[in-house]
């Protein structure tokens, strides 16, 4: 069942949004969605890392199939992705201390961002070819960034709202995410 690239993109960004439908990457999502600025930066970082790790994952998978060692899939994925991310992290720390400060402890946590490993695992299990994987990663990153930015906008606005004290914080973000997740259900079944 080959799908058009466009539908793969719509699927991974809107229908099966990584955050709102698969719950991937919730931790950074809760942390950095408070401000638009950090949200966009984080979105950029995740997009970058996703594209890299999607390509890495494609290569690794091909390699592991070649040497007939499927049992090494998970560990190789995570190790390669983690090291790539760590490189990025060091690079950012060196190049832009302000960006590093803004993303704070979440840069190392990109490594432990399920969205990135999830992407690698899903694209492999769906058996996408290189181009499809790339589009899939692009869609996933776009969806992640979209969700992040939408929530950041709402949270920024709710900074200036009389939110009951008990609800403030993670609970509020989760509730918004829940409502957004329902709104995204409107995209289900979307295909061109």
């Amino acid at each position, binding site marked *: 069942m080959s799908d058009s690239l466009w539908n793969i993109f719509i699927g991974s960004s809107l229908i099966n949004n990584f955050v*709102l*439908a*698969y*719950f*991937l*990457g*919730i*931790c950074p999502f*809760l*942390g950095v969605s408070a401000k638009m600025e950090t949200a966009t930066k984080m979105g950029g970082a995740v997009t970058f890392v996703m594209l890299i790790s999607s390509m890495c994952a494609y290569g690794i998978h091909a390699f592991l199939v070649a040497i007939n060692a499927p*049992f090494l899939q*998970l*560990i190789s994925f*995570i*190790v390669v992705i*983690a*090291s790539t991310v*760590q490189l990025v992290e060091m690079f950012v720390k060196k190049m832009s201390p302000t960006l590093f400060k803004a993303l704070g402890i979440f840069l*190392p*946590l990109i*490594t*432990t*961002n*399920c969205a*990135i*490993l*999830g992407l690698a*695992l*899903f694209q492999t*299990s769906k058996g996408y070819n290189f181009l499809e994987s790339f589009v899939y990663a692009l869609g996933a990153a776009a969806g992640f960034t979209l969700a992040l930015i939408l929530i950041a906008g709402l949270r920024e606005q709710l900074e200036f709202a009389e939110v009951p*004290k*008990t*609800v403030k*914080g*993670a*609970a*509020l973000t*989760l*509730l918004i*995410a*829940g*409502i957004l*997740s*329902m709104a995204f*259900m409107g995209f289900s079944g979307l295909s061109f």
Partner: protein
Amino acid sequence: MSAEDKNINQGSLQMANAKPSTDEFIKGLWRDNPVFVQVLGMCPVLAVSNTALNALAMGLATTFVLLMSNILVSLLRNFIPKQVRIASYILIIATFVTITDYAIQAISVELHKSLGAFISLIVVNCLILSRAEAFASKNTLGKSIADALGMGLGFVFALFCLGAVREILGSGTFFDIALFPSGFQEWVVMILPAGGFFTLAIWLLIFNVFKERKQKDE
């Protein structure tokens, strides 16, 4: 996130005072519950908590990985240079996750299917890495085991809380046993992603209310 910061701080301060391991165990269960208080490891909590069984299995799998990695990290803590610690921890964690993955497949293919990719995703559960980084790498084996068990069981508890609510309301069953007479209207939303968000948010609210009450009492 301040809750998390605080916890790490507490962790680092606690290494100074010699507290018994039981403390490490109990704190993870309730006071510093990884999910409800620290808001860590959300992905599996939300994704596989649509039935109580899945939640329990996932929780136990995570606890196993957490325990084993905490043990290893604690043992190797003086051997691993600081710069490569994260990479090493991830290696260790990934190994145990792979092991768990195969073990669950060997137990039940059905269960493995319903947990899906989320077993593999235990690797990136922030909880495990943060315990390895913040606790096991600085503490003795005994304490690390206690911490892992406490946090792990706290995680199981949280997952179970979610899974039970979502399964009972969403499917009208509990561990696949029908709880209600036939004709019960399932609240489908509970097993949908949105329901996961809502249920977790409501549990967080309950914990917040408890916290506020306690503060008021003080």
